[in-house]
């Protein structure tokens, strides 16, 4: 189903734009790991972030709550948060909790990058 340990990577993909990939259980610890990566990227000049959840099959409401807090902080700074590669259940969970009202959701990373920054090459 899902490993309790989250496998996460984060990098500045292009000027002002950061990419986080997270695979595993998005609970309080997984959500906080994404939040810490987001904070680091914002500190490195990223105003907008894409979180790729390819490989994440299960989440809980506490983890999504932390993602909501990341989104609010980015929006306060004039930035934005986007997600891609969501399972149908995770997409529905985002919809139920209202995350998709403020964060763009894309089917896959390639689509997200081409729409957000016009390139898929970092």
């Amino acid at each position: 189903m899902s490993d309790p340990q989250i496998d996460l990577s984060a990098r500045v993909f292009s000027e002002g734009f950061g990419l986080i990939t997270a695979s595993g259980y998005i609970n309080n610890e997984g959500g906080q790991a994404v939040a810490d990566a987001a904070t680091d990227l914002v500190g490195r000049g990223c105003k907008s972030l894409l979180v790729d959840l390819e490989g994440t099959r299960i989440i809980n409401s506490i983890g999504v709550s932390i993602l909501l807090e990341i989104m609010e902080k980015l929006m306060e700074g004039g930035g934005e948060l986007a997600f891609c590669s969501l399972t149908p259940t995770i997409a529905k969970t985002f919809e139920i909790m209202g995350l998709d009202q403020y964060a763009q959701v894309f089917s896959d990373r390639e689509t997200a990058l081409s729409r957000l920054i016009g390139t898929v090459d970092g």
Partner: protein
Amino acid sequence: MEVVLHLPVVPNVELVAAKAVETLGEALGMHRNGIEAASVATVEACLNAMEHGGGSVVVRLVREDETMPRLRVEVEDKGPGFDPDARPLNDSTRVDGCPSKRGWGLTLIRELMDDVQIISGPGRTVVRMWKDLGRER
């Protein structure tokens, strides 16, 4: 076909229940989306039971064929109980500017499952929920 789990309150133990839902769901031929929805709902029910129940949690997974093939998931705790009618569905508009983002568990359970029944009183709460085996979502 029935699975019964007695879960101690230890970190990430809810994933044991999710794994059981996945395994039984696959054995019963459930659609992948249905399995994942039932898994997330089960995780939420377990987290609520562990947070408010104050002790170990019992999870039962049962195949039902009364009206249509369904997976029934029950999550039981021995906590003080609560009034489920006093917990209306959350609304996604609550997100905007709301300082507290907790308390979505029951809403997710009700939205992700096909049917939900909550029996709660002092010393025993059972969240009973069903997912149709044939549905994609």
